[in-house]
């Protein structure tokens, strides 16, 4: 089969099983768009900004486990995509981004819409390529998908000069089924001796903790994790990125850990004697101050990326391997072992955890006349029966979503954890809805974040992706305001969102439905109404309490047992103390 470069790209995407391509045309990719127009197998989604393309592809990838694919033009097309690429990089999301480039002969001449895309994206990609030879185009594309999806996944950029895609130059094309790269070997198998050591340590623990992260979801190891944790009967906490891998409603799950994790999860981290970390990377939002991190614990760390092990926290038992493979081995070893768990110690440990749990660290004011943001998320949980795909932006609303919407399945919770990219939620929701048109998809956002990629409302109409936007509108950049309240003596510097648009009218102007609620009593009906409108994108503008704060909180330089707790929890602590139930 003789094909041009452009036709090779499209044919390759088909052969690779790509169904959706998020993109935006421009001069350098005109040939590719011409080839794209002549076929129906790969659906192209025309976003309104290249950042939207990368986030949509990212959301699609997180929800499906398949790589997200984007096509953007050279210069500003590529630079606009950078935020989305960096977002995917920080959260290890498989993305393949095809960027157009000026013709080969013009590279380096400061040509119109020329930017060194390979240079610009280098620090925030797993790898990138510049295609210099048409004969290597298919092979390079295969390498890009291979690198993006294997090992610790990540975004890969393929920069393609315009002359490579010229319609009149045709070469034979064969889909490269397999690719070998001598410099890239992503398969690590956990070392049997280390696995044995880890299991001995775990079974001998008196105060064990399991701490799992996004690696379980990326590594498709949720089933194995569930079996393993249930077999042991130990408490488990999960990172923001790991939520849903182990069911959020299971009693063994004691909540998210870290800066805004539950009181009980953080206290248990501090007090544990053996910590089993799998698929997480001891991020600074998890550890608090590292010098006081898990002071009594022997640490087992399982990660597919050797560089994640002992990077910030030293591992006593390092295991380099994929989460599923290591857990499978550990389950086998668990069946065979004659070692016994110290039942009475574990019972005592659960009692201590229960005492921490009884303080109800997420308690919020349920009598207020103002809508509490937590109540809005709880209502969303009820109305969607806890089974929706939830994307979020970044800030207070993101933390409320993580705290008050327990996820029982992996890939349901889609947010920018590592980079913390405002503007992620709406395009990501769009990507999820395209992948799962029959499922409920909601974007929990705030009036600050939503405006960073609001142009994608237009894309939602064009491609009929009826997502529900749950806008927790507190007229403040809430998380920044909270920090200014706590650490800058309430000097609210540039956090009041003055001159906000009328979101209802804005939604209507984009062809959608807008609903505003400002009373707690109206919340339920509005939410039900929004989800009843199956075929419409609904912008639910919820006017919330302006000064609600996210609790508990570990502030800078503090340890897990030094959380700032909510005023309500303080009252509860005092009453428990008075009753002699708190030591």
């Amino acid at each position, binding site marked *: 089969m003789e094909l041009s470069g452009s036709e090779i790209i499209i044919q390759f995407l088909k052969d690779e099983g790509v169904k959706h391509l998020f993109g935006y045309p421009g001069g350098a990719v005109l040939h590719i768009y011409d080839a794209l127009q002549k076929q129906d197998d790969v659906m192209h989604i025309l976003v309104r900004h290249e950042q939207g393309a990368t986030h949509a592809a990212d959301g699609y990838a997180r929800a499906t486990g398949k790589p997200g694919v984007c096509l953007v033009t050279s210069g500003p097309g590529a630079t606009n995509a950078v935020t989305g690429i960096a977002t995917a990089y920080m959260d290890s999301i498989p993305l393949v981004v095809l960027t157009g480039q000026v013709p080969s002969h013009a590279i380096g001449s400061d040509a119109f819409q020329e930017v060194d895309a390979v240079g610009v994206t*280098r620090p925030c990609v*797993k790898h990138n390529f510049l295609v210099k030879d048409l004969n290597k185009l298919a092979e390079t594309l295969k390498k890009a998908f291979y690198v993006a999806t294997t090992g610790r996944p990540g975004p890969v950029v393929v920069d393609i000069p315009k002359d490579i895609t010229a319609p009149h130059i045709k070469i034979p094309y064969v889909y490269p089924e397999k690719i070998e790269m001598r*410099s890239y070997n992503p398969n690590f198998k956990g070392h049997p001796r280390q696995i044995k050591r880890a299991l001995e340590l775990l079974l001998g623990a008196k105060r064990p903790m399991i701490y799992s992260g996004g690696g379980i979801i990326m590594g498709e190891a949720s089933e194995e994790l569930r079996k393993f944790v249930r077999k042991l009967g130990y408490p488990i906490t999960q990172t923001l990125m790991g939520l849903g891998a182990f069911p959020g409603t299971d009693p063994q799950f004691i909540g998210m850990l870290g800066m805004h994790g539950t009181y009980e999860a953080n206290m248990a981290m501090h007090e544990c004697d053996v910590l089993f970390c799998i698929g997480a990377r001891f991020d600074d939002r998890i550890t608090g101050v590292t010098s006081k991190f898990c002071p009594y614990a022997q640490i087992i760390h399982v990660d597919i990326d050797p*560089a994640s092990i002992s990077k910030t926290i030293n591992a006593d038992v390092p295991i380099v391997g994929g989460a599923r493979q290591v857990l499978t081995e550990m389950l086998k070893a668990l069946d065979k072992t004659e070692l016994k768990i110290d039942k009475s110690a574990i019972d005592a440990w659960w009692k201590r955890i229960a005492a921490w749990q009884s303080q109800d660290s997420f308690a919020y004011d349920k009598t207020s006349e103002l809508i509490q943001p937590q109540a809005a998320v709880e209502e969303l949980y009820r109305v969607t029966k806890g089974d929706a795909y939830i994307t979020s932006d970044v800030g207070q609303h993101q933390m409320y979503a993580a705290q008050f919407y327990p996820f029982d399945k992996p890939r349901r919770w889609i947010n920018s954890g590592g980079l913390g990219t405002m503007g992620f939620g709406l395009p990501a929701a769009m990507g999820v809805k395209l992948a799962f048109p029959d499922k409920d998809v909601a974007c929990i956002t705030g009036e600050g974040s939503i405006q960073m990629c609001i142009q994608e409302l237009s894309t939602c109409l064009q491609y009929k992706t009826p997502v529900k936007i749950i806008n927790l509108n507190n007229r403040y950049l809430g998380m920044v305001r909270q920090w200014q309240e706590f650490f800058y003596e309430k000097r609210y510097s540039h956090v009041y969102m003055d001159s906000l648009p009328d979101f209802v009218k804005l939604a209507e102007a984009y062809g959608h439905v807008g609903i505003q609620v400002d009373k707690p009593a109206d919340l339920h009906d509005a939410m039900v109404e929004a989800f009843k409108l199956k075929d419409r994108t609904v912008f639910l503008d919820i006017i919330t309490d302006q000064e609600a704060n996210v609790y508990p909180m570990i502030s800078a330089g503090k340890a897990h047992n030094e959380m700032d707790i909510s005023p309500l929890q303080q009252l509860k602590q005092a009453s428990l103390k008075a009753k002699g139930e708190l030591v």
Partner: protein
Amino acid sequence: MRHIVSLLVENEAGALSRISGLFSARGYNIESLTVATTEDSTLSRMTIITTGSDRIIEQITKQLNKLVDVVKLQDMTEGNFIEREMMFVKVKADGESKRAEIHRLSDIFRARIIDVTDTTFCIELTGSGDKLDAYIKAMHENNIVEVVRSGSMGILRGEKALTL
């Protein structure tokens, strides 16, 4: 501590900037970096001299290994190795006594004079970094016109080798 890290990398455009970019992005030190192709034209051999605590060196080697262009890596400092650096020095050489003095000094250091004018010598010298430093010191600053150092290269002693 000072470490000598040797790498085999794909001989491709961009490989060098990926590696140097990694050092600057993560705030690691580079004392020197040398690179050239090997007998296999698809591979380059690179020697990086870096300093840092054990934890940082561990991170450096792991992060380098993660780069797709890095085929193989070895921290030479973990075994027995030979380290050499090459230097060109252009010195002022006017007057008989000065020229004789430079000759004597160069003999002591086993340096070779590779270019001569009426007023200058160009000298070539190979050795450890310390030896090159000592030569420069002995030559006196005001005699030196120009110094060109290659940066260090390393190779393992014995039968062990860093090959594919």
